[in-house]
């Protein structure tokens, strides 16, 4: 669990981060979103003390982060950034092994861990372990960057626009991979982005920042239905907020008991996708299939539309 208490950063007379307090629950993803210059990256970098706060404090599992030297603290916290920052003179395997080496893991364990991570990120160790970063594609470099951040099994992972440099298709895949990893390892993640769709897609909770202040920190749906500030409403997008809200609920969650006629949709599909499917097919209802492929309920257009408003 990460507890941020009235954290402030000033450079001279400029306040970059102003009295921000928030709590990131264990095993959850918090996304900090804001325009450029909103102080979101500075806030993130104060968690691992790449930036030292002017005042306020950060507690990691109850312990103040200032009680140990900054570089030792950072070895316990994964860190991935935009443009990956891979070491150009080191192979993929050496890059991933960076933090375990700093921590003095035995070579055999490092080797095992590197191999495991390469496999998790769908990079064949036989092909990629010995490759240099510039021999990889952008998407592969980004995956190695995240693998490197996760190498020493950190309980917390910080990411600063990790997918900013990727094209939309690779980006969607990287986001899906990240959610997968989060479920698999239960890592607590804090991610910074300027992309509201990414924030809604990944975040269990989303923090909206502007000019150094935290405007709202809430579940994605609550940001849409109860924006605390006109800026939050503008950031979340007023013109398609109903569709955004629908995108946050899955068919399984909204399914009505019983059965009906119509096209079949998976329980994990979002209501937005189901609605789109119904519009496309000209149908009025859909059958929701559970994980095992058997019908577990149905949805009607009216039931979906009712979910698209507060």
């Amino acid at each position, binding site marked *: 669990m990460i507890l941020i208490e009235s954290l402030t950063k000033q450079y001279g007379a400029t306040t970059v981060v102003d009295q921000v307090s928030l709590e990131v629950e264990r095993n959850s993803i918090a996304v900090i979103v804001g325009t450029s210059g909103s102080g979101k990256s500075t806030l993130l970098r104060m968690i*691992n003390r*790449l930036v030292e706060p002017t005042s306020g404090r950060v507690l990691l599992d109850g312990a103040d982060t200032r009680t140990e030297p900054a*570089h*030792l*603290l*950072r*070895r*316990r916290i994964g*860190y991935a*950034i*935009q*443009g*990956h*920052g*891979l*070491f*150009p*003179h080191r192979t993929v395997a050496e890059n991933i092994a*960076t*933090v375990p080496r*700093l921590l003095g893991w035995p070579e055999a364990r490092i080797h095992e861990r590197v191999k495991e991570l390469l496999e998790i990120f769908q990079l064949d160790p036989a092909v990629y372990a010995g490759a*240099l970063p*510039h021999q990889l594609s952008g998407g592969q470099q980004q995956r190695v*960057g995240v693998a*490197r*951040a996760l190498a020493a099994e950190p309980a917390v992972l*910080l990411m600063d626009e990790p997918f900013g440099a990727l094209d939309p298709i690779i980006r969607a895949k990287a986001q899906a991979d990240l959610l997968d990893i989060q479920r698999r390892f239960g890592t607590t993640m804090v991610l910074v982005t300027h992309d509201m769709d990414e924030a809604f897609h990944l975040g269990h909770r989303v923090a909206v920042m502007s000019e150094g202040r935290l405007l709202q920190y809430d579940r994605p749906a609550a940001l849409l239905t109860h924006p605390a500030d006109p800026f939050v409403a503008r950031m979340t997008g007023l013109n398609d907020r109903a569709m955004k809200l629908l995108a946050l609920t899955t068919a399984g969650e909204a399914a009505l008991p019983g059965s009906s006629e119509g096209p079949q949709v998976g329980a994990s599909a979002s209501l937005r996708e189901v609605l789109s499917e119904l519009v496309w097919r000209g149908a009025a209802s859909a059958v929701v299939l559970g994980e095992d492929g058997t019908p577990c309920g149905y949805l009607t257009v009216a039931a979906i539309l009712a979910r698209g408003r507060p």
Partner: protein
Amino acid sequence: MSFANLLRGAALVLLIAFLLSPQSFAPLFAPLTQYGAPPIYDQGNLLLLALAQLATVCCAAVASTLVAVGLGILVTRPAGAQFLPLSRTLVNIGQTFPPVAVLAVAVPLVGFGEKPTLIALFAYGLLPIFENTIAGLRSCPPAVLEAASGMGMSPRERLRWVELPIAMPLILEGIRLSLVISVGTATIGSTVAAKGLGEVIIAGLLSSNTAFILQGGLVTGLMAVLLYDGLAALERRFSPSIPLD
């Protein structure tokens, strides 16, 4: 083997053959002498003179490298940034102050022999290494430095494992440049009684023996060219080119 490598090989063979057995080349140099003067330098062993000159150059280069790389590292740290203008000025003076003048100043202080030459070469060789060290360290992409710190490297670890390896090709290039300049410049050391090929050139000048002048000059020139090429080949072997994007 490429044409360039063939040429290098030929130059190396020629140099070694000449140094081992200079008298075999006497007929070649004879037309350059007058009144029956000796065509080949006969007041000392050419091989030993060449080796002595190389040794002086290498000693000076080691000292220049240690000081210039150390200074380059210092002024690229946040704590040392304020020393950059001062260091740059000092190193520039070392380069602009003519080595002959350095010799003239140094002799009264440290006496004749190798020492004044070492001082002159040391001061003269600082600039390329210093500037290349700074350029190399500054060529590290900011994202790479940020990642290194973010993963928990201390400033010292970051320098050792990330910055210096990335800067290494440029630092090596600076050392190579400095060495090559020094090989040529070292000949002036003979004016203050340092062992070297300058002795041959000076003897030629004093006795109007063009053959001597040519020998000293050619051997020095060949050594510089071969050293430059050899070090370049070593660099390519030890530091595969890294595209920094």
